[in-house]
């Protein structure tokens, strides 16, 4: 069996030959394409470490069979910074010390980008905490994460206002 999986990852179109229909999107990204920024914390949809954007929506890559998103646009943590400048969410994570070991961080950041884009939480701390609660952080950098998301949300909203 030879399958060809076509994905656009961080703007780059990739054809990934697969001899196997079983790999998840997470394992394809990490083990076949070599984008190891996305992490595996549980492989069961329980921790959020593998969060990526699939056609703009946040998803657990470990719960997604790669072939099921054939043709999709994927954004991973490696695709956020532009021309060496950190994305506002990334910058806010650094400034608010929103991580310790950093292992959950790619997933937290992708989740935050998704949450802000969904526009549901705004800058309400309680809704931010709720909206980020699918992403476990064993180091418990939660206070910093909540602050970083609120900060980034404001920064992105300001940018939008300025450009409007």
């Amino acid at each position, binding site marked *: 069996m030879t399958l060809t999986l076509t994905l656009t990852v961080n703007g780059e179109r990739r054809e990934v030959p697969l001899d*196997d229909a079983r790999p998840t999107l997470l394992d394809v990204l990490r083990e076949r394409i070599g984008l190891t920024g996305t992490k*595996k914390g549980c492989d069961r949809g329980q921790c959020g470490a593998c969060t990526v954007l699939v056609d703009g929506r946040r998803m657990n890559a470990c719960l997604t069979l790669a072939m099921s998103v054939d043709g999709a646009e994927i954004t*991973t943590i490696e695709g956020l910074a532009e021309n060496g400048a950190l994305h506002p969410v*990334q910058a806010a994570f650094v400034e608010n010390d929103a991580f310790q*070991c*950093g292992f959950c961080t790619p997933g937290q950041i992708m989740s935050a980008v998704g949450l802000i884009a969904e526009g549901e939480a705004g800058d309400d*701390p309680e809704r931010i*905490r709720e909206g980020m609660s699918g992403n476990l952080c064993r180091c418990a950098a939660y*206070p910093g*994460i909540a602050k970083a998301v609120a900060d980034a949300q404001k920064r992105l909203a300001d940018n939008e206002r300025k450009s409007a």
Partner: protein
Amino acid sequence: MAETLQFPTGHVRLGSNAGQPITRRDGALKVTGAATYAADNRPDGLLYAVYAASSIARGRVTHLDVAAAKAHPGVVEVMTTANRPPLARDPDAKVHMFSWRLEALQDDRVRYAGQPVAVVIASTLEAATEGARLLAPRYESEAPRTGLDDGEAFAPEAVGVGAPPSFDKGDVEAGLEAAAHRVETQYETPAQYHNALEPHAIVAAWEGDHLTVDVPNQAIAIARNDFASFFGIPPENVTLRSPFIGGGFGSKAILNGPQILCILAARMTGQPVKLVLTRQQMFGPVGHRGATRQALRIGTDADGRLTALEHRASAMTSRFDDFLEPAANASQNIYATPAMRQIHTGVRADIGTPGPMRAPGEASGSAALECAMDEAAEALGIDPLEFRLINYAETDPASGKPFSSKALRQCYAEGAKRFGWAGRPLAPRQMRDDAGHLVGWGVGTAMFPAPMFQAKARAVVREDGSGLVEISAVEMGQGALTALAQIAADGLGIDQDRLEFRAGNSELPDGGVAGGSGHTATAGSAIFAAGSDAIRKLADIATEDEASPLFGAGNAGVVARGGRLYRADDETRSASYSDIMARAGLAEIEGEGTGARNPANAEDYAMFSHGAVFAEVKVDPELCQIRVSRLVGAFAAGRIINPRLAESQLTGGMIWGIGFALHEETVLDPRTGRPVNGDFAGYHIPVNADAPSVEALLVGEDDPYVNALGVKGVGEIGITGTVGAIANAVRHATGVRVGRFPIHIGALLG
């Protein structure tokens, strides 16, 4: 060594970089996905190993369908007890204090559920996973023992890592006899699993007799020697790379069986092999915090002063090894009492061996002690904070030694003020919020030893005035790459932007163990000493060089700052490092340093970090759902190298306290001995919404004895005090005292 113990008397001072709340030096790497953890390595020719884990807890493996696994496309090899290559060291040998007995397919016995029973090696992860499933092990199974009650009790020789199992001071029985009030109480703490978000992982590659392992490790030099001894090669033939650890919490300080199996797989196949544990496999061969049952007896006189304090703990361990949570020892050094006794017993069951998990002993012991102290305060009708102040220990209650420093009184005061403790009603069930929820306030004392281990470091001043510091220190989230670099930059008298800091690799000087909250103190001392050593050499050159503005100042007459040496008596006269080196024709000047505690200070003083934690909980009166609405901790831990990072460590520890108090527990099925909740869906850790308001205040402390940097540690203390504070707040909110952690809704529904 004497030299390193006396700094900073030389040319360099802590303070230009150390003490600043800079953001993490590895921040950009961590937010872009560029920080590489062990499982991110993909060497050419990589194979994947997946092991089959036993589904019984006691018995023998009688059959494995090796043929089926081998027939699966992509499977390269299957390793079982029958074909496992020999090891140069017995996996059941105890070689040193930090060696645990481990399972590396040495026989067909099953000692606990989740033990590796065979390894499948394949060209893809999917094939290895399916191969392992196809092995379908069959067993001859015996009824497992799983709990404190059906386990086999024994009198241990030691608890923790080599600590005495009992301690006595004064006459406890007489103290209890004479007491005006007595409290006798009991608390249970469950098995908890570290569950670092990064599962244990290893990539092993052999080149002839040289082994390279990418593996998260908190004790690089010890692990390198251990790996070497398992494979009969000299330690220098092992390269261990651990640049980033995705959370350790103690579990990555101890070698484990799966690591050995992966290295064996690489040897068997002649190709690099990656083995990553599944989340479910994290509940077995990689350690946990052992369950305890603790009984306390506290006597007080009519004024509330302790007359006796007794703390007994039963701690669970495996059938084949001996780590026991030293829970009772948590009450040795905290409250003044004329008589105390701590006693541990061990209980063996068919479980994986426990190990050190963030604040081993202190966390469980503090949970029970702080609750018991609250019970004693309640018996007296005294405010629980007032009661703790009445029993404030001016000297170490166990040894009688003075504390090297102890700003606990300020911690109580500042924490109470920030929290708004004053006016707390004494009786329970007195406060409600707007939504009608019961509100309760509790306090706990936090305390953790301030140990030092041994470390070495190397520092270099380069001709362009930049610096390099090398040490096999460990970045596991605590911020070592940042805080140690701040110390390193001060040690070399340069700005931290001019410093290259190399760590996390066994080829570098031994940075010691990242554990026991002693890494910054130990590695930091070595680093600072190495920098001072290099600068002393530089100063020699400058002051003996007739062409230098520093000529004749005498070595002791110059100070280093911002990449220049200045005359101490005339700061208008200075020379840059690069000018000094250019004139001397030197490309590099190297210094070396070691870090260890001054033995005389260790003898004379008791050394601890302290803190006070205040908790507010809200409890739904009908559903009994518990929320920790506020936590305020105030901590004194010597000199703080980076307040931003220290706060994160402390709040992180406090949130672990929320998990301990309300969430974390592994439940074993008594029939199979398997965890019924062995994943993140079942084993609950706090999420963001569980920690709405957590604040850590830093209380300054100047400690000239603990080490020359004045540094204690902040990695573990946050969990101590917090668990008790939350439980006490639950009691204050509801009137119910729960004797078992985690506190579940069910216990409140009564």
